[in-house]
């Protein structure tokens, strides 16, 4: 049966667009959002810390969780001050043995080896941390409050980065500007909300379990995990767009 429409072959099809327009749109996205973030981050972190305080309040006496201010960039950030739990020698030893076991055994996994090696990375970080607490627990350089401060600061860096990286990813795609802008703003809001929830969970782990997991939380579940949902939102949109484009022949151009 003959085809009713013969589409351009994928080898040289392209879309119309302009590098200058893209740059303009990128500035239109990143400039206001970055400006808003730079103006609002003291207020955002204050709300974030207050919400975290409320989430954690059932687990601690009222006077043990405080919101304090620290300087960052052009102003202050609010962070939750909380006492961290320190691991016993036995806890450190158990962590060391279990994590070392994972580092040794998991590379032998055949199926889902990519996940296994990711877990090896997590376990390796924990091995170093456990070893540190076995050898010189008194010299651990951070308190839970200092971690709290750095977490908030790295989240601000991440928020500043999201409009830029999503702008780069979204804006060249063949769709109108407004929905892309809305999606970037929604991603940013999602990041702030999720960042707050994760903040509370991290502090709960550090105080109820111990600061032995601080390195793991910072390296494996910090900015790295932020990007999983950023990419997730991008691919969800790209998939929807691809579906729409399939029935939209005029979008595709050929060679020139």
């Amino acid at each position, binding site marked *: 049966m003959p085809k009713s429409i013969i*589409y*351009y*072959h*994928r*080898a*040289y*099809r*392209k*879309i*119309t*667009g*302009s*590098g200058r327009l*893209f740059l303009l749109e990128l500035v239109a996205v990143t400039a206001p959002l970055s400006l808003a973030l730079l103006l609002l981050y003291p207020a955002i972190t204050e709300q974030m810390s207050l919400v975290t305080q409320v989430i954690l309040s059932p687990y601690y006496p009222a006077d043990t969780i405080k919101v304090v201010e620290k300087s960052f960039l052009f102003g202050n950030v609010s962070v939750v001050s909380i006492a961290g739990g320190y691991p016993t020698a036995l806890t450190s030893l158990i962590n060391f043995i279990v994590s070392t076991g994972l580092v040794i055994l998991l590379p032998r996994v*055949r*199926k889902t*080896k*990519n996940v296994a*090696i*990711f877990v*090896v*990375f997590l376990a390796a*970080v924990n091995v*170093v941390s456990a070893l*540190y607490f076995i050898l010189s627990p008194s010299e651990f*350089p*951070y308190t839970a409050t200092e971690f709290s401060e*750095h977490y908030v*600061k*790295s989240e601000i*860096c991440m928020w500043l*980065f999201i409009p830029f*990286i999503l702008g*780069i*990813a979204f804006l*060249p*795609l063949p769709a109108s500007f407004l929905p892309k802008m809305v999606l970037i703003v929604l991603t940013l809001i999602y990041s702030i909300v999720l960042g707050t929830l994760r903040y509370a969970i991290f502090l709960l782990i550090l105080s109820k379990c111990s600061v032995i997991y601080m*390195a793991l939380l*910072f*390296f494996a579940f*910090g*900015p*790295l995990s932020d*990007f*999983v*949902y950023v*990419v*997730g939102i*991008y*691919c*969800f949109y*790209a*998939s929807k*767009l*691809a*579906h729409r*484009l*399939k029935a939209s022949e005029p979008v595709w151009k050929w*060679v*020139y």
Partner: protein
Amino acid sequence: MEVGILILKTYLVVTVCVMVIYLIRHFLFTLNRLFQEQRIYYQDIIDSDLRSITVLVPMHNEEKVARQILGLLTEADYRHDQLEIIPINDFSSDGTPEILDEYASRYSFIKPLHRYEGERGKPAALNAGMKLAKGEIIIVFDADYLPPKGILKEIVVCFNDPEVGAVMGRVVPVNTKTNLLTRLLDLERSGGYQVDQQARYNMKLVPQYGGTVGGFRKDVFMALGSFDTNILTDDTELTFRLLLRGWKVLYANRAECYEEVPETWDVRGRQIRRWSRGHNQVLFRYLWALLASPHLSRKEKIDGVLLLFVYSIPLILVLAIADSLVLFFLGDMEILAGVSAFLFVAAYNTLGNFAPFYQIGVASLLDGGINRVLLLPMLIFNFFFNSWYISIGFFEAVLDKVTGRSTKWLKTTRFRGEESFPVRPAPVYEAESYGLMQARQLYESNPTISGHRTNQRGKFFRVQEGSASDS
């Protein structure tokens, strides 16, 4: 101590700068492929005066796939008096030699070469095959490839341009739907060919000859000298040898050929480790020569250097992560708060997976893919997996360089069985249409690739996602 910390911090900052360079590079590729004028290949040239060609197919224990590639090559749209096929039996201990002899008895242009002496491995096999080859142009296929009917003409036509030394076609996985790994490799290939290679070709940078689905001039190759059997990526080496002598290397996005990608993580790990080792061997050998070459433009040199370092970057990233871990325990989380965010983002999105997520997304869009792009977040696991094996390959290359030891070729395991790609045994060659019929049988009878069809010219395309349209 202070100096040590300064060195660690400097390394971290330098790594981030390197990541920024690669992010910009891949972003430019993405924009170029999406918006700019596409440099088409030579496929519109109809050449009635076909050049004589030799197709080399190195085979080591390839009984699972030998019949399929030979069957398809015998049906290729190329005059048989100008075609020579040399399947190279490279120390096979299975049924491969018998299959080759069977085909040789039926087709005069199939001239198998049986090797049981000397070195084993693809470069050595190709060197041996080159000595017998009579064709003006050499075309190479790995044994697991499924060449469509018209691909020989498509590859050869570019050699009418006297400046062209080698050409590379597009590789498309055929077993995409097998499991998560094959789907992720499909994404990776899509980003690598549809955007990366085509953009480099558009921008007159350094497209890479990939050692299969490609061809090169025999006389040029003979003048350059045979493949170094100690280098595990003969393709990358040939690319740079040609470039350094002023020959052009082209990329033909239209010349698509299906391949079988690894279906298990172990096999994939070994494959990528070999690529890394070979690629870094080439880096150590050709970096300075590349920078000093009078035949290359400045932008070609820059792209060539970035290409040479592609398999070193994951190790640089792994070291940066270790570096940040040390800084963390030394009490320098302050610098990490700002830098680590970018480091991890760049690590995840740039070279751990060979391409940033937006490049793969655009490639998938151009290919007409709809659902496969949803797997992009899964690449986070591949980043650690790739970094692990690429780093091992890097250290092996360093040891190769330092000790001068000889390397051993490890063949990539095949997964295909004849039951999944039935080929008519002992064909009676009667009609030209048989090749098309055979190709259709191959694809339509296989439930795992039911989305693939052939068009009237015998080109493979998918009717589902991945390549929605074909002319």
